[in-house]
């Protein structure tokens, strides 16, 4: 449904719309309003949900396991995946463990995955990421302008994931289409979501068969050799894990890289400071993650829960509003301002509790490398008025077009 067909939001505390263009482009004032007046909002839009905005509420809710269950982690109601030929229900809801599961299964599935995403494991992909970032900039450095979202930020995570999965990096373009089909376009268009989901299942089925016949040293082959709950990992688990890598590891990180570049394009003092003091980059990356946290996760209340005086009935969808938690003035002084060397920063951009993003080490490495190479190659850049900056939001928030101009080299 296009925005134009939807009724305007009257009161954000009772009628919020997480896909509203203003909520996507500048949600800070909306969260501040809800936090002050509510602080847990409710809306009937998009299947109905509850939206916390305070840091302490979000942190408390993240630990309400399994009362607030991860069996539904998307911010809109699930659509079953049905085989168009046989009518068989392939998946009743998105299945991508550990993100879509609760303990005890979650604990096992997470432990299996974490080994592949430790800081040490993420570091092995740094040389590839650095070389890729340079190659992407080579494409537009002599032109004096680029779309930093499309030509840079968006290109890095899908190619890193393709590399990790032992696939040609050109698969990155297909991954972008799939992720948008499932999460971005698919969030408000169930037909696109189902069609994309079916394509993904078919692709992974073929890749798994190929690895079973001829194992190599990539992630899929490694996963096929592992055990889960005392049994060899089955094809459904491998497929679901590959889906997880795409839905969790692509538009999330590209949104973070893009938002950081947008910030630097619109805040020249911060850009100059980061160019002059590259040692600030690790702290700056955490601050970009705080202010421009891309991800909101869904939970399903399996029983009535009461948080901060608000009772959320069983069966309700809850949106884990990590981005709003990170702008709570009770925890972060001057919360809407990026302070590159902010020293106290317990941000929850990667979540908190048992569902802490398993790929956070990889994402952090990609952000640091991408920003460091961009600033090294293009130390001065500005927004270009050749087109608008557009933002996607809802589950994952970040710039989708970001035209820049700079001195050609």
């Amino acid at each position, binding site marked *: 449904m296009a925005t134009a067909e939807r009724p305007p939001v009257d009161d954000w505390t009772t009628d919020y719309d997480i896909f509203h263009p203003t909520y996507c482009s500048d949600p800070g004032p909306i969260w501040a309003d809800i936090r002050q007046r509510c602080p847990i909002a409710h809306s009937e839009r998009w299947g109905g949900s509850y939206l916390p905005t305070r840091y302490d509420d979000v942190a408390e809710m993240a630990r309400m396991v399994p009362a607030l269950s991860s069996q539904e982690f998307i911010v809109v109601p699930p659509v079953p995946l049905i085989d168009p030929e046989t009518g068989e229900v392939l998946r009743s809801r998105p299945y991508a463990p550990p993100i879509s599961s609760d303990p005890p299964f979650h604990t096992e599935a997470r*432990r299996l995955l*974490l*080994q592949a*995403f*430790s*800081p*040490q494991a993420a570091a092995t992909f740094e040389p590839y990421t650095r070389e890729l970032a340079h190659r992407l900039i080579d494409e537009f450095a002599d032109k004096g302008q680029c779309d930093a979202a499309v030509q840079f930020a968006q290109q890095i995570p899908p190619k890193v994931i393709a590399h990790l999965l032992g696939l040609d990096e050109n698969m990155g373009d297909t991954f972008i289409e799939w992720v948008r089909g499932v999460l971005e376009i698919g969030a408000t268009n169930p037909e696109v979501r189902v069609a994309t989901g079916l394509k993904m299942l078919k692709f992974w089925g073929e890749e798994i068969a190929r690895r079973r016949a001829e194992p190599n040293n990539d992630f899929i082959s490694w996963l096929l050799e592992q055990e889960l709950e005392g049994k060899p990992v089955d094809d459904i688990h491998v497929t679901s894990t590959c889906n997880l890598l795409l839905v969790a590891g692509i538009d999330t990180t590209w949104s973070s890289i893009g938002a950081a570049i947008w910030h630097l394009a619109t805040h020249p003092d911060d850009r100059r400071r980061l160019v002059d003091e590259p040692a600030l980059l*690790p702290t700056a990356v*955490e601050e970009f993650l705080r202010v421009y946290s891309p991800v909101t996760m869904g939970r399903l209340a399996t029983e009535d829960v009461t948080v901060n005086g608000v009772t959320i009935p069983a069966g309700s969808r809850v949106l884990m509003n990590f981005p709003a938690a990170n702008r709570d003035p009770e925890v972060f002084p001057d919360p809407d301002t990026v302070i590159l060397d902010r*020293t*106290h*920063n*317990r*941000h*929850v951009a*990667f979540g*908190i*509790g*048992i569902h*802490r993003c398993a790929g*956070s*080490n990889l994402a*952090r490495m990609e952000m640091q490398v991408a920003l460091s190479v961009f600033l090294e190659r293009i130390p001065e850049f500005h927004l270009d008025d050749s087109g608008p900056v557009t933002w996607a939001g809802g589950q994952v928030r970040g710039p989708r077009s970001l035209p820049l101009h700079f001195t050609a080299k």
Partner: protein
Amino acid sequence: MKVRVDPEKCQGHNRCYSLAPELFVVDDYGYAREAEDGIVPPELEEKAKLAQANCPEHAVIIED
């Protein structure tokens, strides 16, 4: 000063390890613990405090 990581609280954010690699180690799963006996040399006290102030799980504990 001594620093330690509460293994019950650590969820592997690795904020401590990235801020103060001299004071923390991570296992194969990315969970952190204090390096060796956790004793913080005077020149690393600020780093230890930074690690504590950035742990989202409040898992980094400083004992004077």
